């Protein structure tokens, strides 16, 4: 008997403790970890709200704020809205909602129902405007301990931008319990910013030391303000030693910001380079591999962009709204096919009669480009067509130091690398790629070996055009879709191919990224347009040194 009893009791105890444990973990999950420790203090402060004098109420509200428990939020909101009552029977504080003749009560600390009461059993806790103002501030501070990290982030910014007397202590306690790194970093800068204004030079120096590690342009200007002089000629920062440290910190931040500026130029250069590469890579096939000057190459890009527009409109009409964002993926093969089809038509209808006469090819394809432009203008109108960024490539990524990149640019860099890798693999490993290389190296011999050179020509041209069409899909995301879209890229893409070396895929890649990065590094020095002029002049001069580009083909193939 006693044995069973004992066993029962121990089982009961286990069950009880596990339930308690689950409850506690739930609590720990929904509130910051410290919350349970000071329930008594919280309850004390809450019941103080029911004090007689406004002075005591004010003290209680402030205590709740400094104490920083999110559970106080409900009580404070109720107080400022006049829904907080004192129950006469046990002097406890309750939130009451009127329901006909009776009031339904809730315990402010737990949110659990506390029964019902009539109006005679309750006494309303009165707040005045001053108290309501205080409550608004305290509520803002309390958001610092909210479980929602977004709310906390906003609250941190709020407190930093309009600090009050208690803010420093508040930020410090918030920092001690903050779990997310970026919010804690923000809190640290906030604390240092506030300490910068303290009366103790030692504290100020410590704050400067900590701020010197940041890379925020805002902090830099904050520090620089310490170096200014007041109207009466005295320094804002009275202590000479601290002033020297501030000076030092500013120069350190400046160095770091310069580094970020470099990184920004580099990133934007890579981004521009990937755009150039996308525009030029199809040309590297038609011009580089086949030796055909295709002035209608830009129009293939334009056709790709317009295909994207059409696919988008089709998706808008036929697909549910959730699937709309994926129109871009569907547009890639569509654009490839459209541009490749036009490519085959151009090759079979025009270019194949002109092999070996590059100047005539140039003029004829220019004619093709004029016709395509006018065709698109007649079909779609001369105005820009809007191609929307789907949700999954909208937005921007912040890198720090005030530098941020739009997500679409990042995707374009990735997309561009994928396209280049796919093309390189295709030329290297596929049967068609082999035939293509054979025809490039020795047309007569390839023909003698049974390769249909005419067919290879047509398909190679289709491949180059198709890739240009795919580039159009990407470019539709960052530039205007208009009949002139291709014109803007034609000179640039020829420059990339010539600079990199005709017939070399590597050359095209290096050429595109090289030109993109050089362009972006020149821009801050000379302005956007002049930078481009300088780059063009550099290319013209560069070709003096290496007339066949960076990665020139060697041997007989180069003697065309």
């Amino acid at each position: 008997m006693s044995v069973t009893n004992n066993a029962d009791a121990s089982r009961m105890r286990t069950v009880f403790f596990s339930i308690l444990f689950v409850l506690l973990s739930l609590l720990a999950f929904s509130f910051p970890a410290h919350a349970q420790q000071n329930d008594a203090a919280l309850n004390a402060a809450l019941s103080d709200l029911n004090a007689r004098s406004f002075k005591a109420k004010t003290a209680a509200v402030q205590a709740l704020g400094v104490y920083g428990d999110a559970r106080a939020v409900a009580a404070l909101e109720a107080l400022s809205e006049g829904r907080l009552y004192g129950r006469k029977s046990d002097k406890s504080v309750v939130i009451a909602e009127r329901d006909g003749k009776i009031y339904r009560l809730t315990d402010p600390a737990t949110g659990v129902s506390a029964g019902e009461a009539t109006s005679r059993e309750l006494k309303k806790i009165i707040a005045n405007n001053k108290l309501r103002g205080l409550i608004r501030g305290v509520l803002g501070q309390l958001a610092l301990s909210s479980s929602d990290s977004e709310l906390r982030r906003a609250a941190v910014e709020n407190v930093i931008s309009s600090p009050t007397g208690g803010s420093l202590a508040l930020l410090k306690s918030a920092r001690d319990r903050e779990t997310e790194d970026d919010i804690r970093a923000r809190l640290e800068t906030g604390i240092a910013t506030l300490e910068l204004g303290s009366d103790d030079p030692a504290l100020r120096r410590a704050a400067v030391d900590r701020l010197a590690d940041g890379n925020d342009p805002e902090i830099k200007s904050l520090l620089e303000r310490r170096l200014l002089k007041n109207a009466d000629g005295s320094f804002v920062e009275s202590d000479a030693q601290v002033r020297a440290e501030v000076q030092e910190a500013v120069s350190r931040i400046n160095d770091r910001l310069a580094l970020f500026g470099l990184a920004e130029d580099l990133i934007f250069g890579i981004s521009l380079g990937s755009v150039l590469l996308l525009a030029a890579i199809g040309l590297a096939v038609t011009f580089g591999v086949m030796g055909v000057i295709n002035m209608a190459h830009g129009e293939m890009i334009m056709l790709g962009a317009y295909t994207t527009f059409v696919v988008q409109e089709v998706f808008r009409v036929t697909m549910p709204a959730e699937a709309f964002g994926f129109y871009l993926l569907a547009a890639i093969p569509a654009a490839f096919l459209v541009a490749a089809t036009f490519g085959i038509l151009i090759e079979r209808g025009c270019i194949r009669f002109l092999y070996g006469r590059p100047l005539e090819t140039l003029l004829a394809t220019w004619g093709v480009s004029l016709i395509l432009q006018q065709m698109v203008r007649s079909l779609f109108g001369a105005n820009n067509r809007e191609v929307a960024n789907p949700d999954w490539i909208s937005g921007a990524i912040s890198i720090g130091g005030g530098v941020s990149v739009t997500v679409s640019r990042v995707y374009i860099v990735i997309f561009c690398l994928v396209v280049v890798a796919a093309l390189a693999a295709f030329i290297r490993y596929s049967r068609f790629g082999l035939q293509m290389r054979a025809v490039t190296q020795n047309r007569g011999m390839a023909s003698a070996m049974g390769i249909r050179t005419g067919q290879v020509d047509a398909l190679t041209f289709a491949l180059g055009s198709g890739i240009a069409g795919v580039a159009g899909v990407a470019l539709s995301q960052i530039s205007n879709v208009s009949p002139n879209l291709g014109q803007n890229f034609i000179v640039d893409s020829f420059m990339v191919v010539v600079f990199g070396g005709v017939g070399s895929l590597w050359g095209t890649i290096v050429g595109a990224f090289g030109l993109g990065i050089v362009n972006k590094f020149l821009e801050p020095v000379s302005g956007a347009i002049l930078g481009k002029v300088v780059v063009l002049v550099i290319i013209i001069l560069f070709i003096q040194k290496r007339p066949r580009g960076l990665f020139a083909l060697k041997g007989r193939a180069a003697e065309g």
Partner: protein
Amino acid sequence: MGPISRRLFALESRSGWIAIAILLVIGLFIVPALNLMVPEGSLFHISTFWVATLGKYLCFAILALALDLIWGYAGILSLGHGAFFGLGGYAMGMYMMRQIGDRSVYGNPDLPDFMVFLNWDSLPWYWWGFDQFWFAALMVVLVPGLLAFVFGWLAFRSRITGVYFSIISQAMVFAIMLAFFRNETGFGGNNGLTDFKDILGFNLSQDSTKVGLYVVTTIALLLVYMICRAVVSSKLGRLLIAVRDAESRVRFLGYSVTNAKLFVFTLSAVLAGVAGALYVPQVGIINPGEFTPAKSIEMAIWVAVGGRGTLFGAIVGAFTINGARTYLTGVAPEVWLFFLGALFILVTLVMPQGLVGVYRSIRSGELKDAIRRRIQRVDV
């Protein structure tokens, strides 16, 4: 006859001289007479608008001649000749800009309007001297010539030929366009130079000035044609043709290909500059639009349509295409680009010798033979 005039006469065949004489009579006497002496409303009256339009075509013909000289004879296809044309135009435009003086909107006698607008307080150094006509005229020749000399020296020295040269020259004109679009470059930016009042004291809005400019341009075309003809029929001309057909072989024979090409390219640029300088007072505006690569490519098709390597064909082509443009953009603007595009394709595919080539094969009966052969082949 002295030796010089004998050599001059040797430049053209007898029928050639007769054609030139007839065209000169029409161009120099009949057209102005029909404009100035025949009363308005008469069937034979040529309005001043048409005289100015003809004057424009004449400028294009000079430009086409310049291009034919290098493309048709030396095999250099420049897709950047708009740069030389435009620079010549800008030099003339700057002179006329300075002639406006205090009659401008802002009324500043020392600064053109756009500089006042940009808050510039003094004339940039590269505008100095442009208030003198002789200086501007010198610059019309010097600036395009110098640019072509430097560019050509760089290009030909490192043996950039064929399409590479075309692409590089296109990049050059593109770079110039970008530079001239900037307000800070100091040539009026996007709007360019316009609102001209007079040239050498003649009021530009008067009909007599317009007809006068037209006559000057006609004479200039004749002179340019004679210069080009003299070059291509000289020993240098034969060397250029040899370079066009087999550059390496000419080099191995010991000729300096680079110098020959450089000379003819620079000469061509100077002629293009002159064309630009005559063009601007007749249309009343010069802006960076003249530097768009598309315009420079279009010049090549004038030459190709007329017939490369004939000089005369370049003039025919410039008149034909620009006439068609004036007509089509008036009647059906949408069709113009289709027409021009189709022309590019058809000329290169079907009639590589251009209109002059077609005319010659008709004259010689080759065309008839070719058609007969084709028909016979179909019959078999």
